[in-house]
């Protein structure tokens, strides 16, 4: 008697496939061990109001990945980026991150999410044990809080606390010189706006103790009209205003404040002004707004930084953003770590990354470091200056002093109970 097989897949094959599938889900590193290319997953925001930042993150990553691949890849393995839209929603960011690892076979993650999404992706990295580099979240607690610490996650982003220390020190010096004692604040009403404003005023008052905040405004995120906020500030008659509004909200605010001639009545400190996304969009940019550097190709004033900004513009026909340089730096770190480890094993890369210093166009002294104790980026170019309405937009930037930043950051961590 001959046995005939029914068409289709056999029971044995089905069991084998199911077994392999289960293994690849439960232990993804087994299934991917033989892959020649290394897939790196990247959830980021490619739709919605801040899509421009997500797109600029993707562009910067691809700019650097192309260079790495042209030079032979990571330890001989070409990089294949798998970039997905999270729509800026934390739950979607977590779902996408998990899918990138479990279904798409990504071995590492570059997390291109804003703060809310980054914390969600961080938990995915904790759960799956996959190497993860956060590239956009500025929320200090992501790496400062020891409860968040995991050995396989790093943050390659400027930090809110660093900006506040430098901004507070810069603003205090101007306050003292010009006698600006009465301040108002106007920032978006969510975690980033509240935390950053609180930290800025903390250091402003530390460096200039006689400063008083006489008015606070908290417009909601993506509010279309700021008229009542502008007029409220005018009524309070402050001598200076601090704002961490950003993107389209900042440009709307400037346009609406402009027609009340607000910028002639007070000194304005807007930490997120000096980014090309805002600088190139505002048609009537007032002269003399004080801003932190986000990304401008003239700070740091090095040929490497200018060349990088020009290369990005040549390829994408627009200037990079603050998120761009951070994402580019993440790829530079990963590339250097793979060279040193001569491997793409996530654990080995993580061991090399901790404490690694690399040459970088965005470093204050030409280098940046992934600090070993809290896995966060330090040594990047940070400073404040005043804007002009045309290029170079911020002709002179007063660089922050990293020695002071480290001292005050340590104090801040202690006060928060992080150390």
């Amino acid at each position, binding site marked *: 008697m001959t046995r005939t097989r029914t068409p289709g897949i056999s029971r044995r094959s089905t069991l084998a496939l199911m077994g392999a599938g289960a293994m690849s889900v439960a232990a993804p590193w087994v299934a991917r061990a033989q892959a020649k290319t290394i897939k790196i997953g990247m959830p980021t925001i490619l739709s919605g*109001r801040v*899509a421009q930042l997500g797109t600029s993150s993707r562009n910067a990553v691809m700019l650097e990945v192309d260079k790495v691949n042209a030079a032979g890849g990571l330890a001989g393995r070409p990089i294949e980026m798998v970039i997905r839209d999270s729509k800026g929603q934390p739950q979607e960011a977590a779902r996408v991150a998990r899918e990138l690892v479990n279904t798409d076979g990504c071995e590492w993650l570059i997390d291109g999410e804003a703060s809310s999404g980054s914390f969600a992706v961080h938990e995915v990295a904790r759960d799956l044990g996959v190497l993860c580099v956060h590239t956009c979240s500025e929320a200090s607690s992501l790496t400062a809080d020891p409860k968040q610490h995991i050995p396989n996650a790093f943050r390659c982003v400027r930090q809110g606390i660093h900006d506040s220390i430098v901004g507070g020190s810069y603003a205090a010096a101007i306050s003292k010189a010009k006698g600006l004692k009465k301040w108002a604040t106007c920032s978006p009403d969510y975690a980033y706006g509240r935390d950053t404003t609180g930290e800025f005023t903390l250091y402003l008052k530390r460096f200039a103790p006689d400063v008083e905040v006489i008015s606070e405004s908290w417009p909601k995120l993506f509010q279309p009209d700021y*008229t009542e906020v502008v007029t409220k500030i*005018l009524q309070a008659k402050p001598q200076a205003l601090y704002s961490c509004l950003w993107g389209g909200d900042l440009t709307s605010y400037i346009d609406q404040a402009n027609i009340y001639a607000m910028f002639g009545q007070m000194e304005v400190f807007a930490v997120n002004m000096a980014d090309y996304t805002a600088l190139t969009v505002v048609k009537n940019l007032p002269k003399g707004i004080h801003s932190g550097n986000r990304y401008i190709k003239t700070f740091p004033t090095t040929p490497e930084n200018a060349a990088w900004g020009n290369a990005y513009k040549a390829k994408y026909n627009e200037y990079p953003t603050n998120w761009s340089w951070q994402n580019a730096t993440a790829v530079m770190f990963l590339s250097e770590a793979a060279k040193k480890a001569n491997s793409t094993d996530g654990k080995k890369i993580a061991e090399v990354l901790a404490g690694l210093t690399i040459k970088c166009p965005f470093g204050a002294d030409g280098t940046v470091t992934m600090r070993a104790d809290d896995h966060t980026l330090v040594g990047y170019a940070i400073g404040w200056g005043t804007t002009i309405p045309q290029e170079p937009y911020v002709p002179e930037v007063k660089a922050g002093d990293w020695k002071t930043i480290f001292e005050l950051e340590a104090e801040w961590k202690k006060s928060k109970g992080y150390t």
Partner: protein
Amino acid sequence: MDLDALAGCLSSSACLVTQTTSGLIIGMLLFLVAVGLTLIFGVLKIVNFSHGAFYMFGAYFAMTAYQFTGSFALAMLAGAAGTGILGLVFERVFMSRVYGADVLMQLLVCYAFVLIFDDVVRLIWGPEFKSMGMPAAFQVMPLFVAGGVVPPYYLLLIGVALVAAIVLGIGLSRSRIGKVIRAAAHNPGMVSALGINTGLIYGGVFALGGMLAGLAGALAAPVRSLTPGMGFSVLIESFIVTVIGGMGSILGALIGALLLGLIRSFGSQGFPLFTEGLMYLFMVIVLVSKPTGLFGKEAA
């Protein structure tokens, strides 16, 4: 809560002038969007959930026309006329097919077009935010009235919205076409039996509603950033206005919008952390005391 600041503002002529004009500006822009919404509901009995998209298109059309011509007047015309034509096409091709359908179906069609219109804007103008910039004629120092600050551009904005309100009010109550529109709202079957093309009336009303929202978008373009999806936040506030004023009432939309503008303006002084909440609280109070809204009519 900062009642001292509110009391101080109410007793100061400078603050009163500034905050009142600020309330009028917010209110009049809201009115232009809300009146289209209420007009379409009054005649077509459709809650046009995609109405915010016309505000968005009005702003983008105006910006594009301004970039090409440098003329502010042509920019306003492009914003209003462009969205009027878009409204007519949208009503004839899509909305007219769901008039007899379930409310849920109508909402789904509208919501689908909210997403489609946002993507169309993204495809044409890109995902990044844009700015039209203030025309040179209005880049002047603000006026100072009794110590209060009043930007000239906002005077124009209030004036244009007021003219629109008056023309609309008189047109609907006095003109023949206005009477036909009101008749179609009451009894479309009878109007049709009299040989009047109700489809044309419906299309015209939708175009007018879209045109008013587009005009609001065009007027807002010099002072607000333009992004795909910018119509949504305006739509929510416009719904609040129509609910407060009474669905279908033009006078209600005007009064509702002005009240909301003043609540936001003076609320930011006295209740800086509860300004949004004040609007909803006011809506709840109106609905509890008069469920049809301030000027809404009871169902027969």
